[in-house]
C-alpha cells in the first residue's frame, strides 16, 4: 500500500468519525464549571506531608545524637547517625520529586514532559534503595559493651547471623533494585501492585525516550562521544 493510500484510508476514517461522533456540549460545559486539579496536584499533599514528617523525625534523632553524644553507647550513636543520614537523603529525593512536580508542564513537547514524569516516578526506586539500606541499623542500635562482654556464644552467634544477613540483604537490594532487574521474580515480589506497576511501565517508556534522544543528537555529537 502506498503512502497516499494510507493517508486516504485515514481520511476516510476521519470522515466517518466526523459523521458519527457526537459532542456532548453539556458535559464539556460542566467541566469548565468544575474546580479541576492540575495534572499532578494529587501527588503534592502526600509528598509535603512525608517531607514535613521526615524533617521532624530527623530533627528529633539529631537532637538525641547531639545531647547523648558523650553518654550514649557507641553502637547506638553509629546506628542513629547512619539512620539519620540515609533518611535525610530520602527526604532530599522527596524534595527533588516535589520540584519535578512543580516543573512538569503538559503544554511542553512530549519528550520533555514524559522524561520529567518518568524521572519523578523512577526516583521512587531510589527511596526504596535507601530505606532498605538502613535496615541493618535496627539490629545494632541496642548493642552495648556490656552485652558483648557478658553474652554467651549462642546469643552472640544469633546476633551476628541476624545482623550479617540484614547487612548482606540491604547491600544486595541497594545494588540490585534497578530497572534492568524489572523482570526478575524477586523484583516482582517486592514491587507489585497498584503503586508500583505504573512505575515499571513508565520505566519501559524511558528506554524509548533514551532511544529518541540518542537519535536526536547531531551526528557529530554521537561520533565524538
Amino acid at each position: 500500500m502506498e503512502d497516499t493510500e494510507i493517508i486516504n484510508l485515514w481520511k476516510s476514517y476521519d470522515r466517518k468519525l466526523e459523521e458519527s461522533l457526537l459532542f456532548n456540549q453539556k458535559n464539556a460545559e460542566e467541566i469548565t464549571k468544575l474546580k479541576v486539579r492540575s495534572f499532578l496536584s494529587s501527588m503534592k499533599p502526600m509528598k509535603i506531608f512525608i517531607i514535613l514528617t521526615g524533617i521532624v523525625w530527623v530533627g528529633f534523632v539529631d537532637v538525641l545524637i547531639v545531647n547523648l553524644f558523650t553518654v550514649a553507647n557507641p553502637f547506638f550513636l553509629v546506628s542513629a547517625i547512619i539512620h539519620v543520614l540515609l533518611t535525610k537523603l530520602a527526604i532530599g529525593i522527596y524534595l527533588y520529586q516535589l520540584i519535578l512536580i512543580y516543573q512538569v508542564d503538559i503544554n511542553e513537547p512530549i519528550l520533555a514532559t514524559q522524561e520529567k514524569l518518568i524521572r519523578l516516578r523512577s526516583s521512587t526506586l531510589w527511596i526504596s534503595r535507601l530505606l532498605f539500606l538502613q535496615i541493618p541499623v535496627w539490629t545494632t542500635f541496642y548493642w552495648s559493651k556490656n552485652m558483648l562482654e557478658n553474652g554467651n556464644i549462642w546469643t552472640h552467634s544469633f546476633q551476628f547471623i541476624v545482623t550479617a544477613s540484614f547487612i548482606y540483604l540491604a547491600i544486595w537490594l541497594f545494588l540490585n533494585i534497578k530497572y534492568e532487574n524489572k523482570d526478575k521474580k524477586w523484583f516482582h515480589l517486592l514491587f507489585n501492585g497498584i503503586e508500583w506497576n505504573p512505575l515499571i511501565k513508565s520505566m519501559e517508556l524511558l528506554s524509548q525516550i533514551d532511544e529518541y534522544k540518542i537519535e536526536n543528537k547531531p551526528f557529530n555529537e554521537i561520533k565524538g562521544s
Partner: protein
Amino acid sequence: MNSTEKSDSFLSVIASSKGIIFKIANSYCKNSEDRKDLVQEIVVQLWKSFENYSDQYKYSTWIYRIALNVAISFYRKENRRRQVSNPLSEGILNLAETTVAEESDENMLVLQQFISSLKELDKALILLYLEEKNYKEIAEIIGITETNVATKIGRIKIQLKQKFSSR
C-alpha cells in the same frame, strides 16, 4: 475575556477538535470505559491549560501536545477510574449508535491494529503523520529534530507497508 466568553471559546475549540481527541484516545485505550475516561481527562487538562495557551503555536499543536501527554501518562495508571478528576457519568464524545463500527473496513482494521501495536512514542508519531502534520509541527509537538522525525516516520512506514503486504 470574562469567564463565559472563555468557556464558550474553549467549547468551540473542543467541538472543532473532537475528532483529534477521539482518535488519540482510541489509539491509546481500546477499552470503551477507559477511553471515555481518557477523553474526559484530556478535556479537563485542556481546560486547565486553556488560559496559558500561547498563540506562539497553533491550537492544533497545543491540543496534540496536551492530549498526547495525557494519553501516554494515562495508559500507565492503574485503577484509572479513580484517577480521573471528577468522573462524569456520561462521556463527552460518543459514537452514534447507528454507526456499525468505525473499524468495519478491513484495511482500516489492519491500520488500527498496527497503531495499537506500536510503542507509545512511535504511536504519537504515526498519528501525527496520518493527520498530515508537517515535519516541523511534528518536531515541535514531540520535541525532537525534523531529521529525527523523518527517520522515525520512515521506519514506521516500512513496518506498516510490510504489515499490509503480508496479508
